[in-house]
């Protein structure tokens, strides 16, 4: 069913508001122009949401897993460009920072960013905070599933992970240090 702005969809007793809606005076209104979807979650009340097009523009939110590319490194932190939020690509790149103490969960003070990331690496990270005025999004890789997923060696070939802290180049067989992510088997494609 179709809806347009500010059309009153239903009251809060019937449904729970989902995306694309807002609450006012105990009624749910649409805030987007699109199609109204009513999903039965099964628990108490159905969730009503307004959907537009294919995918909605997501903004990186606290606790979301994001895919980013390292742009520059520094003894204290690494600067990244956030490319994907979850599995949806972003149209504009947002900037993020991974601080030295957020790279690993253990031995935080002995971390060297040069041995964890290099510019050009693709990293899976989680958003810890939106940051304040001066800083960008703060990210962390302090988990087993987070860290470098794709990296190129100094020779230019894509490296294969050996352990959680090393990757090897298939051409030169040289080992390089990275903070590698342990990707779940179902996400790996041959």
């Amino acid at each position: 069913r179709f809806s347009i702005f500010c059309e009153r969809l239903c009251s809060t007793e019937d449904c729970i508001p989902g995306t694309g809606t807002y609450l006012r005076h105990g009624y749910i209104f649409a805030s987007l122009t699109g199609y109204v979807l009513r999903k039965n979650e099964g628990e108490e009340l159905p969730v009503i949401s307004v959907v537009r097009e294919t995918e909605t523009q997501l903004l990186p939110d606290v606790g979301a897993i994001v895919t980013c590319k390292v742009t520059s490194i520094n003894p204290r932190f690494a600067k990244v460009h956030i490319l994907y939020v979850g599995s949806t690509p972003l149209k504009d790149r947002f900037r993020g920072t991974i601080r030295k103490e957020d790279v690993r969960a253990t031995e935080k003070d002995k971390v060297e960013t040069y041995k964890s990331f290099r510019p050009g690496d693709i990293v899976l990270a989680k958003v810890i905070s939106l940051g304040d005025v001066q800083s960008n999004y703060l990210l962390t890789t302090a988990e087993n599933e987070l860290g470098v997923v794709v990296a190129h060696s100094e020779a230019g070939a894509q490296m294969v992970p050996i352990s959680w802290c090393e990757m090897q180049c298939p051409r030169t067989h040289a080992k390089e240090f990275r903070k590698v992510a342990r990707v779940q088997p179902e996400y790996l494609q041959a």
Partner: protein
Amino acid sequence: MPVDTKRIRGPEESQSPLLFLSPGKVPEASSRQGVRGNGDARPVFARCGLISQAKGSAYLEAGNTKIICSVYGPREAERKDETDMKTGRLVCDFRLAPFSCLKRGAWIQGSEERDLSQTLQESLQPGVCLHRYPRSQIEVNVMVLENDGSILAHAVTCASMALADGGIEMYDVVLGCTLRQSGSTCLVDPSYSEEYGSWQEGYGEDQGCVTVALLPNLNQVSGLTADGEMREDILSDAVRSCMDGCHKLYPVLQQALMRAVKKKAPPPAK
């Protein structure tokens, strides 16, 4: 002072040919060429989704006034001196194309355009759910292709259509309407000659122009601009007529938005 240095100027003694034109007859404020009454707005043509590179876009025509608007965002905010990062920012840019008025305008934004940009931003801000877009900014660029009166009101309408087309969450569309009072007659949605024509008679009493930006479903006024000298009761009547004009405009916009969304995406399969 910003000056256009890229063009080659004529010799020092040259004068604009417009000075030698005989001044055209100013149409009387009471006659409106019989096509529409004093309280009727011009018929509006609106379409969305014409600029493919922009997130959302809209084109509006009312009489001869043609306005095009494009929306980009949400983008990462530039963070100049922002104290509040929890909400987004709306950046508006209002431009009059150099060929839009009778006299050729400058490329560089003049003070009047900056003023109109500020008014546009203040009128649109209450309508957009900025708290859903923290740390981002949404850019709205309005360009007037032909100026035939009441550009601010139609720009507000065009901009909110473009925001809706771009999928930006809003509480309601913001519609604009202008009323021009000259002497005893009040004209809704004046054309260029009606809006500026009688200023030439001099700034007397009962000469004024009011522009109102309204959120129709919530019945809230988000922007009000008034110029000239008007009496208090006439001013409140003028605001009320503008609000009526906005309500009459709403169904046209609804249809244009529905058509645009249907064209962009088919209904979800379910």
